[in-house]
């Protein structure tokens, strides 16, 4: 629902109208952001803090980590101590250091994959919505076929065919994930594509590229950004799951999914160390979801009815 109050603004004749209408001053980006943050719910603030923390850790991993990523520094499965804060893993590598580097690898790869999937899905979705006709039908049905196969199993099959190199991993997950992005982009873009201003642009001879990127895209950006957050979580989880199954990020690269698998046996001895990478995954997913929820609430115009 639009607030309706915008329309209540007095609309006087043009002679006096420049004066009569109070000029709505636009706030600068920074002041708008700080203002929104002050009104943000606790959950969103918590999410933001967690995400920033993860990013900080990922960026400064070499500085923060006490040891190297795949450096063997102690015995196998050493317990938590002052020297090895979270103990060591099955090869005697420092757990804390690997957790810190894991942030870098897991988040970096998930981010890259999500970005790629948005480029593919977003572009095709926009094309579909703008052109309609047979292209829309063809892309739509193709996506239906891809979506009919469970994603994780499909990824497993493809990875075992093409080999589980990092590049293959990113490409396969990006393509499989882009189907969802395609669906969303097409759905929201179709609503914008029928508006009069799109017709006006076509009548003024604007090309497809202009209409897609300048007329439609800015109007569908908010739901896409929110979806980016959610898809990031799913991609992140998919990669972790694949790594856990041994087909994802390959050793010796530190990665939370494979770290859970490699140290899983410790659970039987009542050691919670393998839960740390699992917890890191869970925390980030929850944090991103909190922020996305808040962002969606802000941009979709869903206001609480009192």
């Amino acid at each position, binding site marked *: 629902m639009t*607030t*309706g*109050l*915008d*329309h*209540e*603004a*007095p*609309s*006087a*004749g*043009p*002679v006096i*109208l*420049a004066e009569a*209408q109070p*000029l*709505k001053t*636009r706030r600068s980006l920074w002041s708008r952001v700080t203002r929104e943050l002050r*009104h943000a719910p606790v959950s969103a603030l918590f999410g933001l803090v967690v995400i920033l923390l993860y990013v900080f850790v990922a960026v400064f991993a070499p500085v923060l980590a006490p040891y190297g990523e795949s450096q063997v520094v102690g015995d196998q499965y050493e317990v938590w101590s002052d020297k090895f804060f979270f103990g060591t893993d099955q090869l005697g590598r420092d757990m804390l250091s690997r957790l810190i580097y894991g942030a870098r690898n897991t988040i970096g790869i998930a981010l890259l994959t999500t970005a790629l999937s948005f480029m593919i899905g977003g572009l095709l979705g926009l094309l579909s919505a703008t052109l309609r006709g047979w292209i829309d039908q063809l892309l739509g049905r193709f996506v239906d076929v891809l979506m009919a196969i469970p994603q994780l199993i499909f990824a497993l099959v493809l990875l075992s065919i093409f080999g589980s190199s990092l590049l293959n991993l990113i490409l396969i997950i990006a393509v499989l994930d882009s189907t969802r992005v395609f669906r969303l982009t097409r759905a929201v873009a179709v609503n914008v594509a029928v*508006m*009069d*201003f799109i*017709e*006006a*642009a*076509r*009548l*003024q*001879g*604007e090309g497809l590229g202009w209409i897609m990127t*300048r*007329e439609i895209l*800015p*109007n569908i950006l908010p739901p896409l950004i929110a979806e980016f957050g959610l898809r990031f979580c799913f991609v992140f989880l998919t990669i972790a799951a694949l790594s856990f199954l041994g087909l994802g990020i390959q050793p010796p690269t530190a990665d939370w999914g494979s770290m859970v698998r490699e140290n899983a046996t410790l659970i039987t001895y009542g050691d919670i160390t393998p839960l740390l990478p699992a917890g890191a995954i869970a925390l980030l997913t929850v944090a991103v979801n909190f922020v996305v929820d808040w962002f969606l609430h802000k941009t979709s115009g869903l*206001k609480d*009815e*009192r």
Partner: protein
Amino acid sequence: MNADNKKDRRRSGQSGEVLLEIHGLRIEGQSEDVWHEIVKGIDLTLRRGEVLGLIGESGAGKSTIGLAAMGYARPGCRISAGEIRFDGVDLSKASEDEKRKIWGARIAYVAQSAAAAFNPAHILLSQYAEAPLTHGLMGESEVKREAVDLFRRLQLPNPEQIGFRYPHQVSGGQLQRAMTAMAMSCRPDLIIFDEPTTALDVTTQIEVLAAIKDIVRQFNTAAIYITHDLAVVAQMADRIMVLRYGELVEEAPTRRMLTDPQQPYTKSLWAVRALRKDEERSDDTILRVDGVDASYGGMITVLSGVTVRVPRGRTVAVVGESGSGKSTLARVITGLLPPAKGEITFEGKRLPPALKDRSKDQLRRLQMIYQMPDTALNPRRRVRDIIGRPVQHFLGLGGAARHRRVRELLEMIELDDRFLERLPAELSGGQKQRVCIARALATEPDLIICDEVTSALDQIVAEEILKLLLRLQKELGVSYLYITHDLATVKAIADEIVVMYQGKVVQSGPKSEVLRPPQHAYTELLLSSVPEMDPDWLDSLLTKRGQTRTEARPA
């Protein structure tokens, strides 16, 4: 029966006794966490059987006051001060339960868009029956009998059967009458009509107005009639209140208000309808549409054998009710819908039927302005870019030259430099439409198609836009094909008129000829349906038309 007694007791209230009294009503609305006062101290008295007209531009607070008369404030609004005394009960302090007992049973509300107010999943009768059954006023069989009676009084076709139809199965005018029947179902003391005919065609509007007027009179119901159309309120109301910015400008009985308005603002409202343009003829044709047939998907024929000529530097008005093919004609001319038959000649040359086959120059010379400025401007682009893009695209101007041209265009549409950086949401309706005009002018076109460009605007703002269009025509020599259903606009702007009905041109020619009898039967119906400022107009027209009303429509 108990319910009957209750009804009788209520009906026994003397006509002339005060029913609703509002004192010092103040309502605040919230935007961006700040409360603004939108109704600033309104006093209002309504007696039984009296019809009070509330008029004003959008943003005057009409609807807000109408809803407040029920003790209701929309989400985001609150009643901050004042007393709303309905038959002895102060609604501003009444509990939700008390109000719920009154709503529907004693105060009813008729919304602007009946199509949006009905639930599409239920038949009309069950929606009609909801209020009387919930309030326990009658039994089910009685409700049905009453419904048929009311449907008949409101002159709905097939009163026995129509209740079993779904909302989408009846026309807009019938739906609005069904909604009035629904409001009447509990025989309320007060009905609030919020622009009930604004969304309807003139020919349909008459039927609804006549039905409402008639039934309110029959049941001696008090009503608050909210509208921005002066001629309509003149037919309906006993007394008129003129509102502006949430304040009362003037209040008087209808006849006195019409003949002798006191305030300058009221006078200016009255003057709007007087805009007239002398017709000028020209034999120099810029656009010719020849025997065009068009259909959507090859199935439903929307246009058949349409021939229209637009003289250079003149305005041709295309009139007709909704569904007559006016807008389709615009789509055919612009190339969005290639015609099935016939051809379009522009400047003596045949215009390719499809948009994609037209040259950049052909696109440049033919521009369009839309009905809803809200959807015709990209909400994410600034005025500078909206107007600047066609300047760059068609005239190849960039940098400082482009900036200069954009400022010239802003000046032409009477806006100043401060608007350059604004987004459409930061403009009023009239300003948005001006920006749309500037965007069309940016390409230096020869012909502009105007699709109902003033129908979404308030009368005063619409008047300014029409004056602007006329001035631009005089200065730039641009031709207009002006699509509208409003004949006051036609009188104000047209040189020639094309009357369309069901996809065919039924009459065309210079304005003076089309407006003067003898006319085609449909033209006559259309012309006589336009409300006039005379409070006796509706009654005399209905007497004149008598029972043959519907026969005037060509088959």
